[in-house]
Each structure stands twice: as structure tokens, then as C-alpha cells.
């Protein structure tokens, strides 16, 4: 049943892409959205069945791809990624109806979103090298086209697309190289054959394969220093595409690392996973810092994705290291926490991206310094964005808290392991979790406080109107997921447990006890968010009731309405409000060594005296330091090399003939 449902899902999603391209303009949007929602539901049913029953399915067909055919197989590890993608995809499909309705949607836009969704659903089920690489490349191309559908004539969008294309293809090349190397030595290209042969691989070869594929998957996941495409592509992509990229596509980078490292290579060496954990630490801190300093809503969210993927990488790295040290129970717990955080991240980041898109849609800007007062104009959007922001800040009762609690428990219990190096990595992970928790809260206090509260700072923000029901339903689905997984996380833990067992080469015992709350099986530790939230609600009701019952003086009985205290100012304009830039300024000053902000202060003096300025202009940019230090020199070198090479073909036929002759001589010399 699961096979059929999953395949039907893939089929409907492809049909949605086709219909999006061929239907007449008025029907296009709705037709594609309805079909892709149906596709997501079918895929959800198929993958959900795999997760609940624990039985993987696989099928092979010699059709479709020449020479190799197509191998599909869905085990619980892949299924958890399909389920996550399907949930985010369902919300995005629903949302896209309202998002595209204000103008006639282009064929590319309505066709590429379902196409992107199809490839996202396909990748975790690919079970051979050829199928995987084809699906991976289709995903890269579909996402690239989907990114370009809105404002494709803008310079920033083209820039972002170029960065994304280059980064993702360098990554794909590395993955292809690694997997081909692996297949050549493992005697087969299907994943099952490679996994069966993993004991016969030499350690240096396995290490090379792991590092190559890690490079490729980390570039897709957006780990520092391969994250540079994220803060460019996410803001420029249409919001449904950003939500899919951040909620579903970056996850597949993590999937790849687990599939190759644990399943195909069998866990491997301890140091592999320490490298993964180190990538996670750097990504989490760097992403959180930049998120706290960003003033563009979607750029902030993109950096926050780098931060959260960093946390997941810490979990994956720690789990791999513990498993390599023989601590299966602890490894299972940490990997479960990492996967749970991945699922939660997809929910809240999807919700936040859709919310940011709704605000951009209504106010015409995503610059926090020009927003403000949105909560009064768009109350429902504000509440849903708020749920996402509270979840990502890991407040108890919401899903971010549940997974970060699990991750922290796992890392802390990991200190019982017998390897000093692993313990040092776990310690770094705990410290990272602490600092990114604070920085994330800062970033989202800024996003919520500056963007949604106060007075509107621009005409667009003042004229914002609440978005339509389909967009709210899309956000509401994800926000509802955040609340449900936050209050009763126990409902998904058995499924995650199966995925964890499938994700570790040596398997793992149950990490959590059955129940609605979080109770660890292998070590002591339990928390029940439902009790926490219930207690909080009861407390609020009791205090409220007590205040109603207690008699009060006549002066207090009639409530008095007064304006908010504004320091006695008679005039309060939007220009007096704190902006995102000023909110982030102290933090930016503290971390100036990492963030390297660019200041540009220009003072024009009056003609009479230097002491009286006529005009002052101040510009500030926080560019990505890694982009400046690592990428710019490489790009400059490549450009220089290209200029140099341009001198070689100068149009002279004689010279070309000479090249041909020289090449022939060289070939003859080599062959002789």
C-alpha cells in the first residue's frame, strides 16, 4: 500500500507541474495547487505507512533511465524526510494560491513549484547511484528555475541564482565523484550492493569518499563555509520557494550525509564525525550571529537556517562519533534529537518564511527598518509568525523547545562516553547550543518587535492589509504542527525512533519511552510539555479568577484607558522608534571581529565653518565575512585566469593550426 501511495504521489506531483505549464492562465494556479496538495497527501500516506510499520519498500524498473534503470527504495530514514517535505509542501501548495493571485502567474512559476516538490519527494527514495544523481540534479535545476520565477530581471535575483547554481553544482560534482569512486570499488551502483560490500573498503578510500560527499551535501545543507548561496537565494526566491528550500531542500543535505556516512560506508572513523560536528559548531554560531545582525526579514531567516542546520549537524556528528566509539544507545538518542530538530525546523522555518512572504506581499517590503505596526494591520499573520518565532527561540510548550531539550540531554549524557575527543566535541556542542539560543532569541525579538509592533515606518507598511484565507491556512498548518509537536512530542517519537535505527549503521536501541511527553529510555531524564503547558494555563486561569473575586477600591474598579508611556513627549513619530539596525548595533559592536560591518559616514560642512555640518549621510552594510575572505579572492583569481586565457585565441588561423599540430605531436609523444 505504501509503495502505491508514494508512487501515486510522485505521479500527481509531476502531473501538477505539467498542468501548471499547460492550463489556461485563470485555472493554472488553482489546478497546480490542488494537484500538488493531493500529491503531498498521497506521499504523506505512503511514507507515513513506512514509518509506522517500519517496513521499507523497494522496486526496480529498467525503464525511464537508459542503461541503469531506476531503483527506488524507501526505508524509515528516507521516509522521515519524505514526510517532512510532504507536510511543508502541503502548506506551501495551499499558500501559493493566495500568493500568486494578485497577478497572472507565469507558466514557469506554476510549473516549477510542483516540479521542485516532485524532485524533493523523489531524492530520499533514490536507491542507486544513477537514480540518486539524476534526482539530485533535477532538484538542483528545478529549485534554480523556481528561484528565478519572480523578479527575474532584477540584478540581485540573477546574482543569487548564479551563486546558487555554482555552489550547488560544485557540490553535485563532488558528490558524483565520491559516489562513483565508491561504486567502482564496491562492485555495483545500487545502494544495497554498496552497503553489502562496505566491509571490504579500505579506510583511506572510504575517507576520501566521505569527505567528497560531505563537501557536496554540506553545500546543499548550507553549512559554513559553503553557506554563501543561502542568504542570497532565500531573499530573492518567491516565498513559497524559500519555504520549500529552507524547510525541505537543506534537510536533504543532512539526509545525504547520513545515507552515505552511516548506511553506505557503515559509520567509518571517529574523526569523520568530529569534522561534521565542527562544521555544525561553526555554522550554528556564524548563522546565529548574522541572523541577529540582519535587517532583511528573509535574509535573517536564511541565516537562521544556517544556524539550525548547524545544530542538526552537531547532533549528527555527535551521534556518529558516539556510534564509532560503540555507544549505540547514546548515539541513538542524539541522532533522534537531531532528526526531531530537523523536522521541527522544517515546520517553524516554513511558517516563518510564509509569514515573511505574506508581510512582503502586503507591505511591499521585507526591510525591517521600513516595516512596523504590522500586528495591528495583519493580526492573524502576526500571531502565526509569532508562533514560529517563539518555536524557533525554543520556548517551552512549542516544538523548538522539545527537540533542543532532547539534543541537550543527549549531548550532556554523552559525557559518559570513554573518548576524550568525543567529550570535547560534545562540550563544544553544548556551549554552541547555549550561545545560539540567546542569539536566536535576540534575532526573533527583533523580527517580531521591530517588524510587527510599534508604528508603521513606511507607507507600504501603513497600507498593509491582512492576506487571504489560503495563505493563512498554509501558515496555520505549519504553526499548528509547531504547537502539536511542542505540547505532545511523544506522538512522533516512535516514528523518529525507527528512522534513527535505520540511520545508524549498527542500529540503535529505543531512545525514548512510549508516551505523550519526552522520557528517555537508555538514560535518566524526562519532561512532559503537556503538563507544563497545562500547569501554565491553570495558573493563568486561577490568577485571573482570583483577581476578579478580590474586592478592589472604587478607584481601581473602573478601568482607566491611557496611552502608552512615551516619556511625556507630545509628538511620537515612527522616526523616533527603535529600528532593527539600532537594535542589533550593540551586538554588532561586540562581535565586530566576526561580522566585520562596513560603515560609510559622509559629512558635508557649511561653507562658513567646519563646525556646522550641512548634511550627514551614514551607510552601513554587514556583508558575509566568509564571502569576502574566502570567495572573493578565488573569484578574482578565476577572472584573472580567464582574462589571461582570452589572449590565447586571438583569431589568427595560423596560430590555431599551430595549436592543432602541437597537440598532435604531444599525443604521439605520449602514446609512443
Amino acid at each position: 500500500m505504501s509503495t502505491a501511495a508514494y508512487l501515486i504521489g510522485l505521479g500527481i506531483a509531476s502531473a501538477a507541474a505539467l498542468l501548471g505549464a499547460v492550463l489556461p492562465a485563470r485555472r493554472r494556479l488553482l489546478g497546480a495547487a490542488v494537484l500538488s496538495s493531493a500529491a503531498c497527501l498521497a506521499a504523506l500516506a505512503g511514507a507515513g505507512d513506512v514509518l509506522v510499520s517500519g517496513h521499507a519498500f523497494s522496486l526496480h524498473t529498467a525503464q525511464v533511465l537508459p542503461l541503469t534503470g531506476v531503483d527506488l527504495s524507501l526505508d524509515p530514514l528516507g521516509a522521515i524526510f519524505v514526510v517532512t517535505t510532504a507536510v511543508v509542501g502541503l502548506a506551501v501548495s495551499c499558500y501559493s494560491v493566495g500568493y500568486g493571485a494578485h497577478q497572472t502567474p507565469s507558466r514557469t512559476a506554476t510549473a516549477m513549484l510542483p516540479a521542485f516538490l516532485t524532485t524533493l519527494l523523489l531524492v530520499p527514495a533514490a536507491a542507486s547511484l544513477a537514480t540518486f544523481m539524476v534526482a539530485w540534479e533535477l532538484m538542483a535545476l528545478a529549485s534554480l528555475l523556481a528561484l528565478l520565477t519572480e523578479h527575474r530581471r532584477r540584478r540581485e535575483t540573477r546574482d543569487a541564482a548564479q551563486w546558487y547554481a555554482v555552489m550547488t553544482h560544485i557540490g553535485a560534482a563532488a558528490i558524483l565523484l565520491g559516489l562513483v569512486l565508491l561504486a567502482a570499488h564496491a562492485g555495483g551502483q545500487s545502494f544495497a550492493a554498496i552497503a553489502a560490500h562496505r566491509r571490504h573498503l579500505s579506510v583511506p578510500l572510504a575517507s576520501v569518499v566521505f569527505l567528497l560527499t560531505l563537501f557536496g551535501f554540506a553545500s546543499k545543507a548550507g553549512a559554513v563555509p559553503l553557506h554563501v548561496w543561502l542568504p542570497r537565494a532565500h531573499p530573492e526566491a518567491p516565498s513559497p520557494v524559500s519555504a520549500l528550500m529552507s524547510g525541505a531542500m537543506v534537510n536533504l543535505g543532512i539526509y545525504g550525509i547520513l545515507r552515505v556516512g552511516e548506511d553506505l560506508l557503515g559509520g567509518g572513523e571517529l574523526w569523520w564525525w568530529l569534522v561534521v560536528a565542527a562544521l555544525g559548531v561553526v555554522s550554528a554560531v556564524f548563522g546565529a550571529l548574522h541572523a541577529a545582525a540582519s535587517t532583511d526579514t528573509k535574509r535573517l531567516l536564511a541565516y537562521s537556517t544556517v544556524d539550525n542546520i548547524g545544530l542538526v549537524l552537531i547532533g549528527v556528528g555527535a551521534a556518529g562519533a558516539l556510534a564509532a566509539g560503540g555507544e549505540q544507545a547514546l548515539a541513538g538518542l542524539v541522532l533522534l534529537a537531531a532528526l526531531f530538530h530537523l523536522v521541527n525546523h522544517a515546520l517553524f522555518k516554513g511558517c516563518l518564511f510564509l509569514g515573511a512572504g505574506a508581510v512582503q506581499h502586503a507591505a511591499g517590503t521585507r526591510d525591517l527598518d521600513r516595516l512596523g505596526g504590522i500586528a495591528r494591520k495583519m493580526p492573524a499573520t502576526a500571531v502565526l509568525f509569532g508562533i514560529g518565532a517563539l518555536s524557533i527561540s525554543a520556548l517551552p510548550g512549542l516544538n523548538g523547545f522539545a527537540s533542543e531539550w532532547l539534543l541537550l540531554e543527549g549531548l550532556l549524557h554523552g559525557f559518559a562516553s570513554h573518548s576524550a575527543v568525543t567529550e570535547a566535541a560534545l562540550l563544544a556542542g553544548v556551549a554552541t547550543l547555549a550561545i545560539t539560543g540567546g542569539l536566536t532569541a535576540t534575532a526573533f525579538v527583533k523580527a517580531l518587535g521591530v517588524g510587527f509592533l510599534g508604528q508603521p515606518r513606511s507607507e507600504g507598511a501603513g497600507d498593509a492589509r491582512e492576506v487571504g484565507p489560503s495563505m493563512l491556512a498554509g501558515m496555520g498548518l505549519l504553526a499548528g504542527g509547531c504547537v502539536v509537536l511542542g505540547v505532545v512530542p511523544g506522538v512522533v517519537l516512535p516514528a523518529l525512533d525507527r528512522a534513527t535505527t535505520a540511520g545508524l549503521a549498527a542500529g540503535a536501541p529505543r531512545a525514548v519511552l512510549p508516551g505523550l511527553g519526552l522520557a528517555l529510555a537508555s538514560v535518566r531524564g524526562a519532561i512532559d510539555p503537556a503538563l507544563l503547558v497545562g500547569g501554565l494555563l491553570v495558573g493563568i486561569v486561577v490568577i485571573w479568577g482570583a483577581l476578579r473575586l478580590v474586592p478592589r477600591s472604587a478607584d481601581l474598579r473602573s478601568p482607566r484607558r491611557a496611552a502608552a508611556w512615551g516619556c511625556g513627549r507630545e509628538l511620537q513619530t515612527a522616526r523616533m522608534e527603535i529600528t532593527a539596525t539600532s537594535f542589533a548595533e550593540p551586538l554588532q559592536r561586540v562581535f565586530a571581529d566576526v561580522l566585520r560591518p562596513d560603515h560609510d559616514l559622509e559629512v558635508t560642512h557649511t561653507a562658513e565653518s567646519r563646525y556646522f555640518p550641512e548634511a550627514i549621510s551614514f551607510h552601513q552594510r554587514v556583508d558575509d565575512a566568509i564571502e569576502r575572505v574566502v570567495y572573493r579572492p578565488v573569484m578574482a583569481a578565476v577572472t584573472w585566469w580567464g582574462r589571461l586565457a582570452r589572449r590565447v585565441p586571438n583569431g589568427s588561423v595560423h596560430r590555431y593550426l599551430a595549436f592543432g599540430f602541437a597537440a598532435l605531436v604531444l599525443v604521439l609523444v605520449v602514446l609512443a
Partner: protein
Amino acid sequence: MQLRHVDAGSCNGCEIEIAQAFAPVSDAGRFGARLVASPRHADGLLVTGVVTKNMAVPLQMTFEATPRPRVVVACGDCAVSGGVFAGAYGVVGSVRDVLPVDVEIPGCPPEPSEITEALRRLTGR
């Protein structure tokens, strides 16, 4: 007793004396008086200076923002009666012309000990 200090148009003579009243020699703080940064946190206002036209509305807004029950202390001759600025241009009047005053501290400026004594009558210590 938490007090929010409002300068309604003072020459800053009273401010210097108030600072001295809370400095180690008099130390009004040990009798339970405190200066706070917002009327929302205050039990009353400590107003200095004659009430100028520019400060009349902000003074009233500050009073409105103070939770009830609240006291108003007029500190210095200008706040009590207008002092040397009574009837001058740009002046609305003494604090009593704008707000109900509960305690008056005469003097130009009042000495720290006098300010402390008046505050002790409020705190009852």
C-alpha cells in the same frame, strides 16, 4: 516611596541639592525614598522649577502616567510659588496651578537636609 523627578523649568539649583540629598551625607535612600526612571514605577512626582509653557503638558502627562494613589512634591521656591520667575513670560505658574500638590519644600534652593526631612515625612521613617 519611589519618586519620579520632573524638571518643569528649573535653574538646576534644586537638582544639585536633590543629588546631595541622595548622596552619602544625607542619604535619603536609607529612609526609603528612591528616585526612579519612569513614572510607571513611581508612587509620586518630585517637581522642581517653575512650570514653563513647554513643560506644562509633559508634566500633566507624567502625572497621568503615575499609578494611583500618588503624591506630588513641589521642591524649591519656584515650584512652590513661582519664585523669582513668577509672572515672567513663557511661564504657566507654580506647580499648584497645574497639579494637586501634597508636600511643599520651600528654599532657593532648599538644603539637602530640608529635602530629606520632607521625604521622611512621606516615607514615615
